[in-house]
């Protein structure tokens, strides 16, 4: 059977080439128009909560097709990087930051303002959120952030340590202190050898400013006066707090040394009463530590509880890519809709009110404790100088903690340093 040779005329060749060229140039454009964008997302969730965030982001990508390239950086470095990257137009499409960082980043033009029309169109309404968290996203009348959750302090009570110190009831449950006198009495009973009764803070309790702020707020003091014109740390109420800060280590001798790792000490059964962040509790469960969670005791005038809400922000871009911006909003919306999962797995109470009634959340004793503190929540002041003031506070309160400097002199010096902070 004779085979007929396929012939290729010049016309057919040119037609084929034209078709191929069209396919090459048009095809990918159609494909890219359909492809979902990939956005960059920076956050500082370097603890156990980071793994939970990974799981939720994977689920988000599966459901929406939008991919998130995360950079997970220690918070302090993340903020330095944002400050450098955004002016160079190298910032991320989405960033998770702490509430107290909003004022100075907004003031420096690092964050994109969010128009009310945009947030409401995306379904974010103030009345759905806890007021302090929603307000924390504002600076000088403009919105720069949408809140995610409310990391906060609570009291971890080490069951074994309490039992060993004879501080458990007949049912084996540890006694829970609620006042300063009770904390001091129990802590003294616990402290023996290398076991300590009481500590505030995770690593390096001496310079744990978040704990110091908690006590300031409990005593009605604050870093700045209400008008933000000067520091309030030279006031008697702040000095009283500093005296207590030093006394736990030097006078009562119930707290571990300044550079101790309190989390490890608690897990190792060397610490009885520990005021620390809510982000620790899932890790404690993983480490199989025997503990109960209790509200932060009232160590001064009021039982105020320190909080530091996480906020979603949109770092500024020189030219906004609409598809990426929409994708960033889509993720914020999705996380807000799935925030109950975040609360259950990462242990962070949501800024949105709705999940607070979820029976899975109210059924967890620790989450129930955290929610029960809501009436006492307080956050840092909305001034661009807050973070700088906090940074220079660390060595000063550490000097008080280790007994190197008297409380009154240290606070007076600190107030002067804060007042001298340049604009």
């Amino acid at each position: 059977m004779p085979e007929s040779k396929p012939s290729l005329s010049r016309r057919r060749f040119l037609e084929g080439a034209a078709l191929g060229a069209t396919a090459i140039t048009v095809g990918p454009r159609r494909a890219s128009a359909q492809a979902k964008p990939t956005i960059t997302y920076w956050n500082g969730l370097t603890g156990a909560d980071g793994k939970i965030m990974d799981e939720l982001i994977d689920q988000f990508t599966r459901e929406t097709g939008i991919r998130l390239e995360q950079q997970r950086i220690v918070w302090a470095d993340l903020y330095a990087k944002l400050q450098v990257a955004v002016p160079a137009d190298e910032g991320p499409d989405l960033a998770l930051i702490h509430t107290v960082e909003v004022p100075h980043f907004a003031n420096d033009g690092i964050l994109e303002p969010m128009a009310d029309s945009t947030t409401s169109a995306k379904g974010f309404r103030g009345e759905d959120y806890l007021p302090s968290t929603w307000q924390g996203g504002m600076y000088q009348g403009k919105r720069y952030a949408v809140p995610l959750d409310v990391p906060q302090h609570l009291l971890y009570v080490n069951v074994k340590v309490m039992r060993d110190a004879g501080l458990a009831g007949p049912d084996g449950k540890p006694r829970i202190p609620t006042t300063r006198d009770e904390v001091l009495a129990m802590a003294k009973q616990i402290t023996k050898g290398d076991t300590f009764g009481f500590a505030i803070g995770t690593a390096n309790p001496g310079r744990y400013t978040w704990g110091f702020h908690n006590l300031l707020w409990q005593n009605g003091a604050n870093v700045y006066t209400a008008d933000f014109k000067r520091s309030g740390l030279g006031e008697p109420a702040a000095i009283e707090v500093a005296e207590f800060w030093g006394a736990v280590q030097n006078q009562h001798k119930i707290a571990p040394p300044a550079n101790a790792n309190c989390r490890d000490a608690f897990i190792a059964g060397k610490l009885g009463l520990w005021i620390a962040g809510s982000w620790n509790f899932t890790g404690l469960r993983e480490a199989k530590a025997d503990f109960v969670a209790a509200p932060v005791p009232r160590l001064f005038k009021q039982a105020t509880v320190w909080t530091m809400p996480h906020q979603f922000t949109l770092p500024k871009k020189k030219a906004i890519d609409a598809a990426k911006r929409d994708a960033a909003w889509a993720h914020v919306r999705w996380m807000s809709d799935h925030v109950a999962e975040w609360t259950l797995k990462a242990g962070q109470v949501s800024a949105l009110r709705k999940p607070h009634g979820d029976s899975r959340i109210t059924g967890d004793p620790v989450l129930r404790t955290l929610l029960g503190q809501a009436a006492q929540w307080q956050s840092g002041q909305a001034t661009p100088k807050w973070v700088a003031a906090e940074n220079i506070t660390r060595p000063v309160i550490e000097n008080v903690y280790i007994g190197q400097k008297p409380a009154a002199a240290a606070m007076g010096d600190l107030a002067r340093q804060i007042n001298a902070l340049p604009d």
Partner: protein
Amino acid sequence: MKPRRARRRGAFTPYLFLAPGLALFAVFRVYPLLEGLWLSFTNARLGRAQHAFVGTANYVRLLDDTRFHASLVNTAYYTVASTVPILAVPLVLAVALNRGIALKTFLRGAFFFPFTLSVVTVGLTWLWLLDPVIGPSTYYLRAAGVPVRSWLADPNTAMWAIILTTVWWVTGYYLVIYLAGLQDIPRELYEAAAIDGAGGWRSFRSITLPLLRPVFLFVLVTHVIGSFQIFGQVFVLTNGGPGDATRTVVQHLYETAFQNFFHFGSASAMAWVLFVVILAFSLLQFRLLRGHTQY
């Protein structure tokens, strides 16, 4: 005789070879240096688009910055206090290893191993070792009945804990330098000294030490420059604490530039003061040691 044009072309050849290196040096070293100098006379702040010339205001402010003064004193203290162990410990080990003791190769590797670790790994390891509650040192000292103290939380001992960590970390590196220097010393000198009745200590004092002078100069200068720039160990181990007891210039500079308001102007002024101090010390060391070097 070569024609003049060919000679002239030949004179340019070395510069052509040097040009790529010089270009990179100019872009990545000289330009940032001069840019830093300019910034030190401005109110530059990261995130602020405009900055204004403020004259010597940043330098004048340093005169009143008590924490900067403390950091200068701490840095000088660290440099001086760490120099003797950094010079002596690797030297003793190098002399011992150069004598052909058993397990020489293994020990060289073992001593060098810490230097292969990053400063963060070294810092975190020692932070755990020295932890006052759960650290192994605390455990064994307590078990031995020795009073336990918190090395890193005590202003009197924190800097020494950092020095100890640094010595452990860099000994292997200087050990290798010393070994290279020791192996360059001719054996005949020791043999002649032995024939003349010199003992080990006399040979060490009269042959080894003088002939190692160039190595000493290298170790001293690199160590002093590195000491003035110490940051990593302090950042991980104490973060400048307790209080400001271990705050060094670079730590203070870092916080000024990247944590407290991102004041690049002030931080650049600190960097230039540090640069001048390092330059002065380096020139002094060269002047003191170079003239007496014996080969």
